Structure formats: structure tokens, C-alpha cells
């Protein structure tokens, strides 16, 4: 994923504001370049084609997003007798039980953000300052958590850090202990650690990519004025980095605030319940839909505030960058011995942190007890069981079904999301009118609503429609809502990078706007479209929050079956399924990379 947030384009100042006095040494300033093109809404954005092209996508998006949201929220205001009432909301915001949940949600998000930054920022420093062997690899490894399905992380944590997990077993064998030394699971620490696992790469990537492109001449200037290294860092570098750090922190906070599966499984009980989990519990376990809906209101309120805050920090970042991007990024200095040591140490630790849970999932899936006495050896037993070659899968349905379901849902989601994001991006990218800003906001809005709430909305729709077999359709729609903002975030920056002159050139050569779109813009966007499709596919493939909230027992997807297996303490089965999930994700990403590369090796 491109964390460099390249979709921020400081607009060029108007050329016509200042009068140029003709002189003997008249030189053009680069700032005035092409600003005539931006002075008015260009012919392309005004053409009928570009005005109409986003309409289908917008209609579909509004329907599939606003409809479930309306269902959810309206239920918050309706009491048991079906009358309008704010009693549920009032009682929610006053009862100590819900207040405690809200407080815990905020506290855990805060601590998680802090820990993520603590792990990520040193890495950002090392990445930004030094060149060292294996830097690319560690970069790649650090992006893995971001695309990893939550349920896999959860499983990985259980398998690796659990009382009977690989880490404890190794330590027990190594120091011949009787008791597992690390009792991490089902505790606050486990939740925080899992969140850190998930989110430290955000801090690492966002901050380091900003840091890398930061003009070092400010630091050099400070050094020429006699500032020492520590002082330079404190007075120059850190203040300049602050917007990037705050931006990363607010994003992490948002993700941790709406975290669901990790809390549900690793939190292990009502003691560690967050708003999202409580919404799910009320809706699906205590059948208190009204209560779930009124809690959703609170959640949306907070996430909206967070998102506003986040976009404000993004703007601050953009402003600052517009002053500092003028200089090309300087060549990184080769690491000093200490720097190299630290960099490699960090890389090894980070790689172990990221890879250990995943690797242990794969290892566990191939291990089976040889005899009752203990001892394990390589076996395909769990795979055989899953695919129904031998009995004992019980009510879970066969894994093969779940795989087929997940793959087809993900494929549909990717295929449908791409045209929606592409067409919306086509009309949003250049014009700076109010309507296009609103449009961009609408498409980003699903990010402000947690996927559990979207799932809840579809659950309500399903129960209203009753009995009809539309479970899969609803899952697809929910996944589309969740995936679209991410895909748009991938496509839009690339779209904005296409110089306006390309389309203009095509038109002067006789291409209609529609032809320009298909023959110039779409081919140029191919790479980002493939990336977007990969993300949509991966998001859908691993989505559990909305799916679990809306699904009935008949519906199976890979993460759902994994969750059910974990709940039934069938960890090896879950591991086998998890390994398949890892494999599918890996194939999709490798395939995507190949697809991006083959035609014109850019």
C-alpha cells in the first residue's frame, strides 16, 4: 500500500494575481506554468461524458451504504412498541455499564496507538536515515500486517503466544520449565500487542516515507548555525515530522477504536469489551437491536470526529510538504556501525514479530499428534478433515464450500468496486467544485462508519426481508461498502498524477472525452486499478466484522469458518484453513504484481 499519501496536491498559486514588470532579464517562473489550465474548469470536466460517468456508481454506493445506515440508526430511536423514543439512547449514555465500555474503548485505542508508535517510530527513523542491506525486504515484510485478515492475526497470536503455543513450548523446552512462562492471551496485553502488530507498520511507513522526502537542507542550515545533532532533531526535525506522526497516530487510533475480531477473541470476555463488540453482542446474542443501534450512534460520532481530525492533519501535512518537496530526496548515508547494527537488530525483531505468528499457523496446520502419549509429526490430517475426506467436521460445513464462497464473493467485490471507484475518481480528480468535494466525501464516508455497524444494517435489512435467501448478496454489498474507500484511495492519487495535458493532447488529436478516458486515462491507471482490485479482493477475503454481524449459520466464508473453528477449540483445523487463506492472499498479490509488470515494465 502506498502510504506516502500522494493524493495531496498543493494548488499552484494564480498566475494572474501578480503583474510582471517587463525588464531586461525577464525569466519565466516555473510557478506560473500551466496555471492557465486550472484557472477555469476545463473542457474535459465540463463534458457530458465526465459529468454522467460517476452517476451509476454514486447511486449504487449511496443505496448500499446509506440504506443499511438508515436502518441501523433509525432503530436507535424506536422502542419495543415501535414508537419513537430516545429512551434507549439516553439510558445508554448514562448507564455505568455502557460508560465503562466507552471508556475502555477509548483507553485501549489510546494505549494501542502509543505502543504502535513506540514500535514503529524507531523503525521510521532507521528507514529514513540509513541505507542497509535487506531494507527492501523488511519494508515488504512490514506491509504484510496491513493486508492480513484479522482472523489470521488472531489465530496466529493464539498459536504463537498461547499457553500451549509455539513460543511457550520452545521456552519450556529450552529452560525445562513445567509451567508456560508467558501467559499473555485473553488479557489487555494481548489486545494491545495484536493492535500493535496490526498498526505499527502504519506508523513506520507513513512517517518514514514523509521523513525520506523531507528536504534536509533545513537541518543542514541549522548545523551551519552551530546547532548540535540532538538540538537539531528537537528543534527542526521533530516539529517538521509532527504532522506526519499525528496523522499516523490518528489513523491508528481510528483503526483500534473500531477493532472488532481481535477484542472479540483475544479480549476473551465482558471485562475487555469495546463498543464494536458490544454492538455485535447486543444485536446477535441478546437480540437487543435497539441497544445495538443506539451504541452505533456513539461509535459513528467518535469516528466522524476522528476522521475530521485526521483529514485536518492531512491538510497540515500537505501545506508543509508544499514548502519542502521542492528539493529532491538526498541520497541516504551509509549506516555507521552502530546505525547498521540497530537497523539490522530492528529488522530482525520486526520480521520476527510479524512473521512468527504466521509461520506458526502454517507449521501447526501440518502437525498432528502421533499417539495419545504426545509427540507430533508432519501430517495432512487437518486438511483431510476440512475437505471432508474424513468425517468429524461436524456442523461446520466443508471448508471447500467456504473457500469457494470466499473466492467468489471476493472476486465479485473486486470486479464491481473497481468500476465504481474508477468512475467516481474520473469526475472527482480534477474539478475543485463543491459538488466534487461532496462526492469525494460521500465515497470516503464508509470509512467513518465501522464495518460492524454496516453489518448490523444489513442484518436488519435481512431480518426485515425475512427468510429470503439473499445472504450472499448482502455480504457482497457490505464488502463493497467497506472496500470502495480503500480502492478509491488507491486510484484517485494516481488519477490526479496524470497531467491534464495528456487528456488535452488526446482531444486536440481528435479524441472525444469518452475516447480520451478509455484510450489514455484507463491504460495509464492500469497499475493502480490492479492494486485497487487486489486490495478489494484481500479486504473481502479477510473481512469478518460485517460478515459475522450479518451472517446466518448457513453462510460460510473462510474467516467465518475459521472463527467458528477457533470458538470450538479446533485450532489445527483453523490453522489449516488459515494456511489456505495465506496462500490465497499470497497468490493474489503475486499475481497482481506480475500483472502490473508484464506489459510495459514500469
Amino acid at each position, binding site marked *: 500500500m502506498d502510504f506516502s499519501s500522494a493524493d495531496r496536491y498543493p494548488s499552484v498559486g494564480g498566475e494572474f494575481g501578480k503583474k*510582471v514588470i517587463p525588464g531586461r532579464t525577464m525569466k*519565466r*517562473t516555473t510557478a506560473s506554468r500551466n496555471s*492557465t489550465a486550472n484557472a477555469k474548469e*476545463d473542457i474535459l470536466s465540463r463534458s457530458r461524458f465526465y459529468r454522467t460517468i460517476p452517476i451509476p456508481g454514486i447511486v449504487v454506493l449511496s443505496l448500499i451504504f446509506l440504506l443499511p445506515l438508515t436502518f441501523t440508526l433509525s432503530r436507535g430511536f424506536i422502542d419495543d412498541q415501535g414508537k419513537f423514543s430516545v429512551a434507549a439512547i439516553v439510558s445508554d449514555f448514562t448507564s455505568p455499564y455502557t460508560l465503562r465500555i466507552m471508556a475502555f474503548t477509548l483507553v485501549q485505542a489510546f494505549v494501542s496507538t502509543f505502543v504502535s508508535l513506540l514500535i514503529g517510530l524507531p523503525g521510521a527513523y532507521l528507514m529514513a536515515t540509513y541505507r542497509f542491506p535487506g531494507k527492501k525486504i523488511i519494508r515488504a515484510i512490514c506491509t504484510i500486517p496491513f493486508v492480513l485478515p484479522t482472523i489470521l492475526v488472531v489465530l496466529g497470536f493464539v498459536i504463537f503466544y498461547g499457553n500451549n503455543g509455539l513460543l511457550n513450548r520452545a521456552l519450556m523446552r529450552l529452560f525445562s520449565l513445567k509451567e508456560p512462562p508467558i501467559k499473555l492471551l485473553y488479557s489487555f496485553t494481548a489486545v494491545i500487542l495484536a493492535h500493535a502488530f496490526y498498526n505499527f507498520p502504519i506508523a513506520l511507513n507513513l512517517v518514514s516515507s514523509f521523513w525520506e522526502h523531507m528536504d534536509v537542507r533545513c537541518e543542514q542550515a541549522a548545523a551551519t548555525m552551530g546547532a548540535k545533532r540532538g538540538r537539531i532533531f528537537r528543534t527542526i526535525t521533530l516539529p517538521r515530522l509532527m504532522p506526519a506522526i499525528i496523522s499516523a497516530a490518528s489513523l491508528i487510533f481510528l483503526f483500534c477504536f473500531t477493532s472488532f475480531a481481535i477484542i472479540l477473541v483475544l479480549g476473551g470476555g465482558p471485562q475487555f469489551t469495546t463498543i464494536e463488540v458490544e454492538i455485535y453482542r447486543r444485536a446477535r446474542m441478546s437480540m437487543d437491536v435497539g441497544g445495538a443501534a443506539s451504541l452505533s450512534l456513539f461509535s459513528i460520532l467518535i469516528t466522524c470526529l476522528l476522521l475530521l481530525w485526521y483529514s485536518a492533519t492531512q491538510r497540515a501535512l500537505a501545506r508543509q510538504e508544499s514548502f519542502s518537496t521542492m528539493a529532491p530526496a538526498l541520497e541516504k548515508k551509509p549506516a555507521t556501525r552502530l546505525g547498521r547494527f540497530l537497523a539490522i537488530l530492528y529488522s530482525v525483531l520486526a520480521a520476527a514479530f510479524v512473521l512468527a505468528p504466521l509461520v506458526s499457523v502454517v507449521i501447526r496446520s501440518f502437525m498432528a499428534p502421533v499417539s495419545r502419549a504426545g509427540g507430533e509429526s508432519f501430517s495432512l490430517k487437518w486438511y483431510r478433515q476440512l475437505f471432508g475426506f474424513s468425517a468429524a467436521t461436524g456442523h461446520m460445513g466443508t471448508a471447500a464450500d467456504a473457500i469457494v464462497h470466499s473466492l467468489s464473493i471476493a472476486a465479485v467485490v473486486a470486479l464491481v468496486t473497481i468500476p465504481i471507484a474508477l468512475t467516481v475518481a474520473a469526475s472527482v480528480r480534477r474539478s475543485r467544485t463543491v459538488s466534487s468535494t461532496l462526492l469525494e466525501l460521500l465515497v470516503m464516508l464508509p470509512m467513518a462508519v465501522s464495518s460492524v455497524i454496516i453489518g448490523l444494517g444489513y442484518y436488519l435489512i435481512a431480518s426485515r426481508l425475512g427468510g429470503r435467501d439473499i445472504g450472499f448478496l448482502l455480504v457482497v454489498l457490505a464488502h463493497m461498502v467497506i472496500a470502495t474507500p480503500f480502492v478509491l484511495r488507491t486510484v484517485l492519487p494516481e488519477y490526479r498524477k496524470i497531467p491534464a495535458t495528456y487528456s*488535452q493532447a488526446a482531444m486536440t488529436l481528435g479524441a472525444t472525452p469518452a475516447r480520451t478516458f478509455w484510450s489514455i486515462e484507463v*491504460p495509464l491507471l492500469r497499475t493502480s486499478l490492479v492494486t485497487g482490485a487486489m486490495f478489494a479482493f484481500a479486504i473481502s477475503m479477510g473481512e469478518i466484522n460485517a460478515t459475522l454481524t450479518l451472517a446466518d449459520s448457513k453462510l460460510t466464508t473462510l474467516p467465518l469458518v475459521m472463527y467458528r473453528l477457533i470458538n470450538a477449540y479446533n485450532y489445527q483445523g483453523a490453522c489449516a484453513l488459515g494456511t489456505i487463506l495465506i496462500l490465497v492472499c499470497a497468490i493474489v498479490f503475486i499475481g497482481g504484481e506480475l500483472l502490473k509488470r508484464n506489459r*510495459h515494465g514500469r
Partner: protein
Amino acid sequence: MADERQQDDEHTIETVQKQHVHAPWLVCSDIEASYPEFRLNLDFTVLQGEMVSIIGPSGCGKSTTLQLISGLMEPDGGTIRLGDEDITHKPVWERNIGLVFQDYALFPHLNVSQNIAYSLKLQRVPKNDRRQRVASLLALVGLEGYQKRKTGELSGGERQRIALARALASNPRLLLLDEPLSALDAQLRKHLRKEIRRIHEETGITTIYVTHDQEEALSLSDRILVMHDGNAEQLATPQQVYQRPGTLFAATFMGDGTVLPYEIIPKTLVSAEAGSTAFVFRQTVGEHQVFFRPENVLVHDDPSLAFPEFLPHLRFVDARILDCEYQGSRYLMECEWNGKRILAASEDKPKRSLVTLGVRLSELVEYIDGIIVDHI
């Protein structure tokens, strides 16, 4: 200021030699484009087969003019005619006007041949004809055999030529060049400037060339349109624009020169025959000024010798040289005389800092309120 009647004989001969019909081809009548802080208002005509440069400082509306003609922008008023057709409201993709962009805008996902053939493909030209046309265009711009190259592998100059070839592929009715050489280094610019002129002459296509480089405009074009603040200052041959600039703005923009009040003439006029009738002072309303180029100033640095000018001239005795800049072929001096600044050029470095300057009466161009007075 657009006045075709100002064309001199020399130019007429040249166009006849090129065997082009000397008829109006592009007629921009009173076209307007309004912005909050800028208003463009133009009225000019380009003749068939002609190469016209548009020159002016940044933000004067040069590029906007090209956008209006090409159809990338719609004017708020006025009409644009091309040939016998009113194209004011014709969509850009139906105009068949070639435009070469400042950044060339070559499509990075297509190779050289695909780039050039883009318009041909849109016109459904058969594949074989396309191939031939691409080959002949590449020959025209001097890049034979470049068909399969990727645009990313090309140098700046090569990109510029490919962009030109692409714009010419559909036999456009008009070719627009938007500062096509501004991204290249000085040596290459000079070379490509000649190439562009050659290609213009070979194809005979009516061309408008936007530039901010005076030298480029002077050397390249049949006529030059000087723009300032969204308005045309002068449209005339390079010689006229340089020697008899239509406005004071054009005068100072197209090279160095000195502006002095008209009253300076009776104060400094020296005539060989006393009581000469060569000059009659005229009382006028408005700011009356005279302008002359530094190379028309005679620099006399040896008071022991007689002043070597016998025709009626202005003489500035004991001007002080404030600054002397060596420019390779000449020395450009900034002098001070009675509180006035005068620019003078000389091949030799003056030996003293006090010199006497002379400029012939016939070399003066007169302006009232910045606009040329046509009677001297």
C-alpha cells in the same frame, strides 16, 4: 494594434515565394476570456501559411490564447474563424488543430509510433497507410527508425520532435506550439528552432508559436504578436517590432532601450546647418516620449576629437558611465546624463568614464501615452 497594413514589401515577397495564398486563415474577432483578476481581449488575424509568434511576459495570456484557439477553453465572447468556418463553439476534438504542449504530453503507455498514429487510428486510417505516414513524419522530424522506442527513453529534444510529428499526423488545419523549446538547453533550442522553421516551410502549415524568448520570436516568425495583460500590443514583422515597436511596452519588452521625455529633443538637438527645418516641436496632449535602442547610440570618449556625427542628432555631453557590461559582441553601458538614464552600446570599451553620447533624430521613435506616433 493588429494591423496587417503595416506589412512591408519584403514580407509580401517572401510569402509569394512560398506560394501560399495570402489570405486570412485564422480570424479571432474580439475574443474574450474573463477571470477574477485578469481579462483577455484579442482581435487578430493570421494569414494562410504564415508563422506568427505570440510573445509577452508570464501571465499575459499567451497560453490562454492558444487554449481558446485550440478549443480547450471556450471564450466568453467573440468569434474564432478558421478558413471559412466559425469554430467558436466547435468541440476541441472536431477542430483538427494540432497543439504541441510545453511538456510535450507524449502518452507514456504508447511507443513512438503509437503516439504519432494516435489521431490516425481515431480516423480509422488503414494500418498500412498509418505505418507509412508514421515513417514519413519521422523522416520529416529527422528521427527515422524510432517507431518502436518508448517515450521514456527519449531525450528532451527527441520528445519535442515526436510531439511535433504527432501534432502534424492528421494534417491539421493549424499548428499551435506552446513554448515548445522552453524545457531545453540553449544549444538545442537554437538547433530545434531552425528545424521548426524548416518543417514549417516544408509543410506550409499555418503556425502559431508561443514563446517568451525575444530572440526566438525575432528569428523564427513571419510576424510577431506582442501581448501584454491580455491585450495585443502589436502585430507586425520582426523588423518592425524591433525597430518601430508599436507601443512603449513592446519597445521595452523586445530588447533594451532608453525612454526619454519628448522635451529632450529641443534641449539637445544638434544640427550641422544652423536653423535647420529638420525638427519642428509639436505641442501635444498626453505623455509624449521618445525611445531609441542602445546600438543606435554613438559613444564618443575622446574630447580632443570632433564629434563624428553630421546628421541632425541629439547630443548628450558629459554623460557618466555608471555600469559597463561586457556582452561578447559589445559593451552595454548604463549612463547618467542630467539625471536621466541612457543605455548605449559600443564595440570598444570607453576609455573614460565621462563620454558624449549621440543619437540620430531619425532613429527616434515617438510615443504619446505609450502608443507610437506615426509621422516622423
